[in-house]
C-alpha cells in the first residue's frame, strides 16, 4: 500500500514537472527556432534559453528517484 503511494507520488513528480517544463519551453523553443532559421550563429544562445526550464523536470526526476530508491527502500 505504502509502496504504491510512493510510486504514484514519484510518477506525479515526474509527470507534472514534465508538463510544466514543456509548457514553459513552448514559446522559448518556438522563438529560438525562429531566430536560428534566420541566423544559425544564434544556436548557442538559443540553446541556452531553450533548456532553461528543463531544470524543473530535472528536479522532478530527482524527487522521484529519491522517493523510489531512498524512501521506497526503507519501507
Amino acid at each position, binding site marked *: 500500500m505504502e509502496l504504491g503511494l510512493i510510486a504514484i507520488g514519484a510518477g506525479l513528480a515526474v509527470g507534472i514537472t514534465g508538463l510544466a517544463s514543456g509548457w514553459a519551453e513552448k514559446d522559448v523553443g518556438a522563438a529560438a527556432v525562429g531566430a536560428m532559421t534566420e541566423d544559425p550563429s544564434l544556436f*548557442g*544562445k538559443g*540553446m541556452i534559453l531553450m*533548456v532553461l526550464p528543463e*531544470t524543473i523536470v530535472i*528536479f522532478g526526476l530527482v524527487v522521484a*528517484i*529519491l522517493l523510489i*530508491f*531512498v524512501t521506497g527502500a526503507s519501507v
Partner: protein
Amino acid sequence: MSLPESMSRVVIVGSRAHLDKAIEALYESEILHLVDYTNGSDDGFFIGRPLKGSQEASERLLRIRAAEKELGLKASAEDPFPVKDIRAQISAGKVDEIEKEVFAVADERNNLVQRISDLEAIHRNLSLLSRLPLDMELYSGYDSVKVFIGTFKTDPTEALSGLENAEVFTDVRKSEAPVAAVFVKASDSDKASAILSDHRYSEIPVPEGSGPPGLMAEKVAAEIADLNARLEEIGRNMAEFSEKHGAFLAASDEELSIQVEKGEIPLRIATSDYSFVIDGWVPSVQVESAKAELEAKLEGTAYVEFQETRGRKQHESDEAEPRFKTAPSKMKNGEMAAKFEYPTKLVSTPKYNELDPSILMAVFLPFFFGFMVGDAAYALPFIILGLYGIKNAKSQEFRAIGTVLFFGGIWAFIFGFFFFGEMLGMHFIAPDEFDALTVNWQDLLGIASYPDWFVSIIPGGHGVGKLVDVTFLLKVSVYMGIVHLFIAYAIGFYNSYIQHGLKEAMQHNGGWLFILVGLVMVCYAMTEVLFYSKAIEGVLLYTLLAGVILLLIGAVIAWPVEKAQVIMEMPGIVGNILSYTRLAAIGMSKAGMALAFNYMSIIMIGSGGDIVSYIAGFLIFLIGHLMIWVLAILSAGLHALRLQFVEAMNKFFVGGGDEYAPLMVKRKNTKIVETEV
C-alpha cells in the same frame, strides 16, 4: 585560463598615390585588424573611394554569380587553379564567353518552362471540354447567342430550364466537378449568369482551334512531350556545362572576390586629398616586427606609428574614441584548449578584458558528459566516433563535437569502468546488497570469482550502483557543482579585479564568493540536522556558525551595490547548486532504462530454447541499448553544455568581443604557384 592576447593600436600614414601598394603590403603581412573609419572623426578626412578596377571586377563578379546560380553550382574546384592562369583567362574574356553561353541556355530553358506550363493549362481545359459532345468551332462566332462554358459545383441544367431557348450540354460524373456548356440568347445573359453563379460557375477559357477537343488535347499532349524532351536535353547540357566550367567559375569568383575586397579597403579608411590614414590593431608582442616588415614593404611611401597598448581596465576602453573602444579579442589557448574555443564562441566571443572560459570548457564539458554516461560499453563508440570526427570532419562544428565526444568518451570509460564498474547497464561484479538488481555480468557469464586485482580496482569491490547508492551519487554531483560554481565566481572576481580594481571586485563578486561558501556550510549543517536528526553540537555547530558568519560577511560586502538582490539571489544559488543533481539523475535514468531492457531480453533469451524469443530478446537488447546510446548524446551532451553555459558562465561571462580578424587572403579554389612569387 587566459586573457585574450594583448593588443596595440597602430596607425599607418602615407601618400594616397601609393595606397594600393600599402593595401597589398597589409594583406601580405596578415597581421593588421583594421578599424573602420567613420566620417566625421577627423577634420579633412573622409572615407575613400574604391580602387580603380574594383568596379569592373564587381560587374564581372555579379555576372559570374548569376551564372553560378543558373547552373545551380555550389562546387569548389577540387584542384585549385593557379592564380596566374585565372587572371590571364579573366582578362582574356573567357568569363564573359562562358556567361553568354550559360545565359543563352538558361533563357531557352525558362522560355520552355513557361511554354510548357501554358500548354499544360490548355491541355487541362481541353480535357475538360472533351467531356462535352461539341466541336471547338461551335463555342464561338455568335452574335445573338451568349455561351458560358465552365465547371460547376452542382448541375445547373434544371435551374436553366426556365430560360427560353437555353441549350445546355452537361457532363456529370460522380468523382469530378460537372462540366457544362450553356447557350442562351444574348439578351438573357444577365439572368443566366446569375443562375450560373449560384451553381458556382467557374469559366473555362476555350483555346482557339477546330474539331473535337479530345483530338486537340492529344496534339497538345504530344507537343508537351516534345518540349519536355527538349527541356531534359537542356538540363543535360547544363549539367555538362557545370562539369566543364564549374571549377573555373568558382575559381574566378574567388579571385575576383579577393580583388574586390582589396579594392574596397579605401571604404574602410580615412583619406584626404593627398594622404591616407589606416588605423588598426596588432598583437602587442608583434608590434616591432610588424612595423619593420610593413615599412620594408612600403619602401618609404608610408609610415607605421605605434599609438597605444590597450590595458585591461574598463575605463581605458570607455574613454577611447568610439571606434577604438573595443580592442579585438584573439583567444590565446594551448592546442588542447583551443579545440574548445568553438563552444565558447557559440555563446559569444570573450571581451578583450575578460578571461576566456575555453579551458574551463575543456576540463568540465567532457568530465560532466562522461559522468552522466558512465558506462564502459557506451564509451567506446563515443571514443571512436570522436576520433573519426577530429580526423575527418571538414566543418569546425563537427570537429568541435568530435572533440567533446572523444574526451567525453574517455571520461565515460573511466567512470564506467573504475567508478561504476558497469558495462551496458550491468555491473561486472554482483555484490550481495545488489540483490534487487539481478542482472550482472558475473551471473550472466557464470564467472565464479574474479581475480583479486580486478576486484581491487573497482571501488567497494563492486562499483557504485547507480540505482542503489542514490544518495551518495546525488551528494557527489552537488559537490561537483559547488566546485564548479566556486570556480565560476572566482573567475568573475578576477575579471572584475582586472577591469575595475580590487574594491569593485570585492563588492560585485567577492561578496558572492563568501555567500556561496557560507550557504554551502549552512545547508550542509541543516541537512544533517533535518534529515538525519543529528544534534547541533561539535563540528556541526561550528560549521553552522562559520557558515552564518561567512554569509553575513558576504552580504555586508555585497550590500552597497547589490542591495536587496543579495537576499533575493540566495535561493537562486541553492537552486544552481541543486541543478547539478542532474549529473546523477541523468545517469540514473539511463541506468533505469538499461535495467529494463536487460531484464526483458534476458528473460526472453533465458526462457528456454524457442528460436523466436531468442531473436526477439536479442533485438530488444540491441535496439534498447542503441536507443539509450543515442539519447545519451542528446541528454548528456546538452546538459553538460547547459551546466557550463547557464549555471557557470552566467556568473562571469559577458562576451560580445570582436574577434581578431587580420586582413588576409584565404584561397580555396585558387593557389599561388611558387614561380610567380
